[in-house]
Structures are given as C-alpha cells and as structure tokens.
C-alpha cells in the first residue's frame, strides 16, 4: 500500500489535491482512499490530508499511517512538526523558495532525510494566476514517485478539471508539468 | 386558477357544502370551529389543512373520528407551518412533473392556536413565510394555552389571569403586552396579513377569499373568544367577539404586501375597554381599586394602537 500525508493550510487545496490523486489513480484501476483531519479551524490553520493507494480494496478506516511520502504545500510549515509517524524510507516533497542547503540550515530536523524541493507557490502564481500549490505538488510527486508518465498524468488531470474555464485548465496543466521539471 | 366563490349574503353562503363536520369534541360555544367553518366554507377549491397541536387538533380528530371533509394532517405543536410547507412543496413538485392526482385548484391552510403561533411554532411559521410557500396560516388566537388548562402565552394580554400568570395578593396577572404578530408577519413580506373576528362573518369570509386568491404566504390573526378559560357563558362567544371589535381591542384591519394598511371597520360608537374586560372572569380582579391603573393602561394602549393604524392607513404606508 502506498501512503501519503499532506501538510497544508486550510484553504490551500490539499483536500482537492487528495481527491484529484484519488481520481487519477482510481481511473488506473487502483483502489484509493482520501481523507483529511477536520476541525473547527478556519482558513489558514495548519491541517493534514491523507491518501492511500493499493491494488486491493482499502478497508482500514483508521487514521494511523506511516507515510511513504510527506507532501508539504505551504513553505512555512517546514518549521512545524511534520516528522511524526515517519519511516526510514519516507520521502518529503516540500514547497519552498529555499535551496536544499538553506533549508537544512534553517531546519536541522531534515538532516539525513530524503527531501525534494519545488516552489509550488511561485509556479501556481505564475501559471494559474493564484497561489494554489496543490496541482503542481502532484506534478512533483509524479517525478519523485514515478507513478505515472507526466503526459498521461497531465492528460488525466485535464479531464478531471473539465468543469473549469479553459484558462484555468491550461494553467494547471502547465503548472503540473513545470513542477515535474523543476522538482529537485 | 380558481374562481372566487360568490358569497354576497348568508342566504347564499349557507348553501355551501359543509367541510367541517359536527361531532367534534370542542367545548360548547368554542369560537374555533366557527372561524374554521367561515374559512374553509368560503372556497370551493380543494384544500389540504395542517393543524398544530391544540384544542382544534385534539378535538377534531380524536380517533376513530375525523371532523374534516378535506385532507388534514397534524404532526406537532410547533410545526404546522413546516408541515403544510411540505405538503405544498409536494403539490408543486408533482404539478411541475405532470404527476398531479387532480387538476382541481388546491389551496393549503395551517390552523394553529396562539401557543403554536406566537410561541413554540414561531420559528416554523417564520421559516415557511420567508420561503414564500403558497399557504394560508390562520392563528386561532384565544390568548393562552387553553387546550391544557389555560396557561399564559405571549398572546395573553396585560392583566389577564391565567393558571401560570394568576392574579394574587400582590399580582394583577399577566404583566406583558400581547405580542404584535400582525406587524411581525407583515415584516416577513407576506402577501396578505389580516386580523378578523368570527362575529363579523362578512369580514372573515372576505379575508378568507382574499387569502385564497393570494399566491404567496398569508397570515390571518383570528381572535377566538374562549368561554372556558376567559370565563364567560358559552352563549356569549359572539357577543364577546363583537365587543372586542367595537371597543377596538381587536381592530379589523389588513396589511397588503408587507406595508399597505387598511382598517376594514371603524366602530361608530365608542365602547370603553372596561366594558369588554368586565364581561370576562379572567379580568375580574382588575376591577379592584388597587388594579384600576391596569384598566387605564389597557385603554391607553388600545387608543394608541388605533391611532397608529389610522395614521398608517392615512399615510398609505
């Protein structure tokens, strides 16, 4: 089973990102589960969302998870505790404008961890026109995980977004591809 | 569209098909059934009626009997308006989808006492009125919870002795003025809001017919003298109702489209409030010298309200 944990701020689209990943994976015949931890908090509060993907039906409805990937879509969240319940092989994909060196210096807790960086905020601002780091993060995930060919994934996302104006769809596709190319 | 039934006089009206039958278990002399008959017999349209818990509900449908010759539902004390809004919504839904049971014109009425209107049913009434359902809400206003032994409601007038606002050594009974439901319902933007009294059958029938002709929410405040809890002889119900109108305690007026006030009847001879109060046991204690000030306050309030209505009418707002 593949497990992912998202770290986001309420309103940044982590839940939408979780659902989008579910959609695309389910389309490929996988069993999926997406959920988040809701509270009474409003826009801006740190929050988590989760994905499970498997070949078999997913019947676990607990929140217990040792994620294969930790996705951080708000740059400031690296300073909070995002390291619980991880395993040795857990990979981090982090939205930041910092370089790897700068990040390690700012947050020593990342030392010895497998981290990948990409500036999803900047990418989404430039390609979609607003800070919506969720879809570019999925592009970066495709690169790091190798789950899908990027063109296939971008094509699936394009279909998924059919209800939106063409401009938004195009922007998202561009952002996904750019994050795929830029993640390091 | 339904056609308005021609009702010029009682000779004509009394040929109506009766839609509320005898054999119900209301007290002798109860005004509720008089109002109901004046209302439901004033149209030939098909009717669906909901009724809040209360005297009318209990007494007209004690199993195994129903007094209603039209479809009728009772759910609870506080939800007559919500219940009829559901019936009306179903009617609309079936009509829009060509699944109606009948093409006949259909109207929807909720009857409730003042407890089920002014107090516990207020939210449900406010909601249904705000949503703009095509329904008529008739409050049978007997100024208290008469179904359960005469407790106070927010419709009980000042000085009224009830079992929960009794007069005693240091109390003259109810301390608060009656809630002004007419203005509240007008403020909801109801298409038609009117107050009537059963003793003036022509006024009641006219208002019923205006209600049936409306397509939006309608609120009718029908004052309903209660021989049992107001404490007067059952034969006097219409007498009391008449004095309520003549003394301007119950002005017969209407408010159209939320603002336009018309006073439908202006009594020519001045009947003091004292005369009305003196006819009922519930106000007996007000005639003690120490409580005289309450009667004075009563008269002041009635005069002020009357002046206010006349000025609203004159100003056309």
């Amino acid at each position, binding site marked *: 089973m593949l497990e992912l944990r998202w770290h986001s701020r309420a309103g940044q689209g982590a839940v939408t990102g979780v659902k989008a990943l579910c959609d695309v994976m389910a389309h490929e015949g996988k069993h999926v589960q997406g959920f988040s931890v809701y509270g009474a908090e409003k826009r801006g509060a740190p929050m988590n969302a989760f994905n499970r993907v498997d070949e078999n039906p997913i019947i676990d409805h607990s929140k217990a998870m040792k994620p294969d990937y930790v996705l951080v879509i708000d740059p400031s969240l690296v300073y909070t505790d995002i390291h619980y319940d991880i395993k040795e092989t857990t990979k981090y994909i982090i939205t930041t404008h910092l370089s790897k060196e700068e990040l390690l210096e700012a947050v020593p807790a990342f030392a010895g961890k497998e981290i990948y960086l990409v500036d999803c905020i900047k990418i989404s601002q430039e390609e979609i026109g607003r800070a919506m780091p969720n879809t570019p993060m999925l592009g970066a995930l495709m690169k790091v995980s190798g789950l899908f060919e990027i063109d296939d994934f971008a094509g699936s996302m394009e279909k998924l977004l059919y209800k939106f104006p063409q401009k938004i769809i195009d922007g998202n596709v561009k952002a996904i591809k750019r994050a795929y190319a830029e993640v390091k | 569209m339904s056609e308005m039934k021609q009702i010029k006089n*009682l*000779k*004509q*009206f*009394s*040929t109506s098909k*009766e839609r*509320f*039958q*005898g*054999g*119900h*278990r*209301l007290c*002798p*002399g*109860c*005004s*509720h*059934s*008089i109002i109901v*008959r*004046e209302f439901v017999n004033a149209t030939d349209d098909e009717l669906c009626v909901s009724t809040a818990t209360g005297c009318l509900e209990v007494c*007209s*449908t004690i*199993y*195994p*009997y*129903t*007094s*209603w*010759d*039209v479809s009728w539902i009772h759910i609870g004390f506080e939800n007559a308006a919500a219940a009829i809004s559901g019936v009306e919504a179903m009617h609309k839904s079936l009509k829009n989808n060509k699944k109606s049971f009948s093409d006949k014109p259909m109207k929807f009425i909720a009857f409730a006492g003042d407890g089920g209107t002014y107090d516990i049913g207020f939210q449900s009434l406010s909601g249904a009125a705000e949503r703009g359902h095509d329904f008529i809400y008739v409050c049978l206003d007997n100024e208290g919870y008469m179904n359960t032994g005469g407790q106070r409601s927010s419709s009980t007038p000042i000085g009224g002795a009830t079992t929960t606002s009794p007069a005693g050594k240091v109390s003259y009974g109810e301390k608060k003025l009656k809630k002004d439901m007419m203005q509240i319902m007008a403020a909801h933007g109801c298409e038609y809001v009117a107050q009537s009294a*059963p*003793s003036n*059958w022509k006024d009641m029938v006219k208002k019923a017919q205006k209600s049936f002709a409306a397509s939006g929410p309608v609120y009718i405040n029908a004052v309903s003298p209660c*021989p049992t809890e107001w404490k007067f*002889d*059952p*034969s*006097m*119900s*219409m*007498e009391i109702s008449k004095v309520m109108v003549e003394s301007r305690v119950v002005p017969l007026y209407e408010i159209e489209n939320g603002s336009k006030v018309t006073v439908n009847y202006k009594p020519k001879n001045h009947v003091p409030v004292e005369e009305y109060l003196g006819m009922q046991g519930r106000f007996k204690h007000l005639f003690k010298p120490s409580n005289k000030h309450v009667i004075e306050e009563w008269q002041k309030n009635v005069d002020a309200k009357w002046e206010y209505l006349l000025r609203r009418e004159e100003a056309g707002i």
Partner: protein
Amino acid sequence: MTEEHLLKGWEEFEPGATLFSFEGKPDQEVHHENNSVQHSVADWRVDKPVHNKEFCIDCQFCWVYCPDTSIIPDVDDKGKGIFGHIDYKHCKGCGICVDVCPTNPKSLLMFADHLPVEEALRQWPEKEEKK
C-alpha cells in the same frame, strides 16, 4: 363511549392510523364510519335550542355562528339557504344560536333538553317591548 363496531383488532386498522372522511368519492356525500358526523355528542347537552318557525326570517345567523355545524339549512326554490332543522345529534347546547337570533321574539330559545319541542313551543314568549 366508543361504538363497539369500531373497536377492531390491530391488523384491521389502516396503517399509520389514518382516517377517511368519505365512503367513495366526496361528491357522493356518503360519510365514512370514521367521520365525526357519525358520532353523537348529544349527551353533552343540558339545555337544547328549539326553533320557532313562526318568527324566523331565515337570516341564517344561527347557521354561520353554530360551532357544532348543527343548524342544517334547507334550500328554497330560488336556491337560497333557509333554516332547515336542528341537528340534535351534534348540538351541545351552547346557546350561541339563540344569542345571535335577531328576531323579536327570538325564533330560537333554550329549553331543558328533556322538554318536548311541542311543549317548548307552547311556552314561547310574547314580543318584547323595547325599553
């Protein structure tokens, strides 16, 4: 007291305790056994109203103000409603019909329930002089 024939077993009732107003269609005007018109409340009455045709002007006030639907009108040859009869099965003897009767002397008066109507009519008062 409930009529015996209505006391059925649980399996015989309509689900949901619903009641019906009519046997057949409403325009056939045959009331269902569960319509309260089938039920007598005559035993509520202590005094009864008696109608005196001699003074009646068919104003129909008694019809409109009867809370127990117990003034049953007739229709004259012009199609107009006139006084018909009193439905003593449903009249509770409240006396409103007497109170609202405008004639002088009144065309409706209350008498003890056990008094025969003929006797009541014999006791009918004279026209009252205005004071």
